[in-house]
């Protein structure tokens, strides 16, 4: 029982940080490239610290911090991207939406769909990586991205 209680309680931040820092950094490097990953890494764990003492249990911490990292990466991506002029034609040559053209619209999507769309089309991440980032399955990530894209198309038409 004691072990169960310990497993469920929030660990000291040091343990949480040491356990996840390398995986989170790797995730950010994949999303943003080495250079920008460094800023995003610091921001991710500072955000985690800000919320850490309000966590009520220690389950799903990995998914939690990956979600934070993904949001930080999305913010970073948006910050550095030049403004784009919206156009109605969102099909690129290979039939996928040209991300630059839907970016401003993605902001209005529900959070999970937005993250999935951005990771898929802006960063070209695999659905399995997106699933990891969002703390869900590959299939759920695929569905979130495709329903996000459908929603965007409806809005554009």
């Amino acid at each position, binding site marked *: 029982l004691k072990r169960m209680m310990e497993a469920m309680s*929030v*660990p*000291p*931040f*040091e*343990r949480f*940080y040491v356990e996840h*820092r*390398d*995986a989170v*950094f*790797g995730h950010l*490097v994949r999303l943003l490239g080495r250079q920008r990953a*460094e800023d995003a*890494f*610091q921001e991710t*764990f*500072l955000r985690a*610290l*800000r919320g*850490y*003492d309000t*966590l009520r249990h220690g389950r799903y911490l990995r998914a939690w911090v990956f979600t934070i990292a993904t949001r930080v990466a999305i913010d970073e991506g948006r910050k550095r991207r030049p403004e784009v002029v919206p156009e109605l034609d969102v099909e690129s040559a290979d039939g996928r939406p040209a991300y630059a053209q839907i970016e401003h619209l993605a902001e209005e999507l529900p959070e999970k769909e937005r993250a999935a769309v951005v990771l898929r089309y802006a960063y070209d991440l695999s659905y399995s990586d997106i699933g990891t980032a969002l703390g869900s399955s590959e299939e759920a990530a695929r569905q979130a991205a495709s329903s996000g894209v459908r929603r965007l198309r409806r809005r554009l038409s």
Partner: protein
Amino acid sequence: MTTVPNALDRSFRQAAAEAGLIDVSFDVADSPVGPLLLAVTEAGLCRISFDPEPERATDELARTFGVRVLRGPREVDRVRRELEEYFEGRRRTFDLPLDLRGRSGFSREILDRLARVPYGQVTTYKSLAVEAGNPLAARAVGTIMNRNPIPIVLPCHRVVGSNGSLVGYGGGLDRKRLLLDLESGRPRLDIH
């Protein structure tokens, strides 16, 4: 697997402390009595442990001071420096604010009195109990010494039995002897 570069790790730890987001900063320092785990809060020094294994210390620190426990070498610099001076024989009193949260009542009273036992002198468990107005509590004083959260700085090594025997020490009798020897300026301790 990608590994976080050391410089990035250091800069995160520093940024976290500077942003005021840390409940307890700790680090491990070398000393003549072995590695010491040092921990500080915003209020002051809160822990010195002879068990330098952070895994064990951080759980206890988190329970007492909050879960945002993070290693931060710079944060404990002042403590590390004063301890170095002490072990080199250049410092007799510590100028460090202390955080004794979680210690109240009789325990707190005894620790406050302990703080005033001067460098190079010894007192007894019984005298501390008498001073605190509870002459029968010598054994309780022993327990409080054994659980002293800030040994060395709160000098429980200066408390001995009424017959002059060293009795015990949370960090082991060898360490107690070494600290008393250091303060006596003599190679061996001989209490009468």
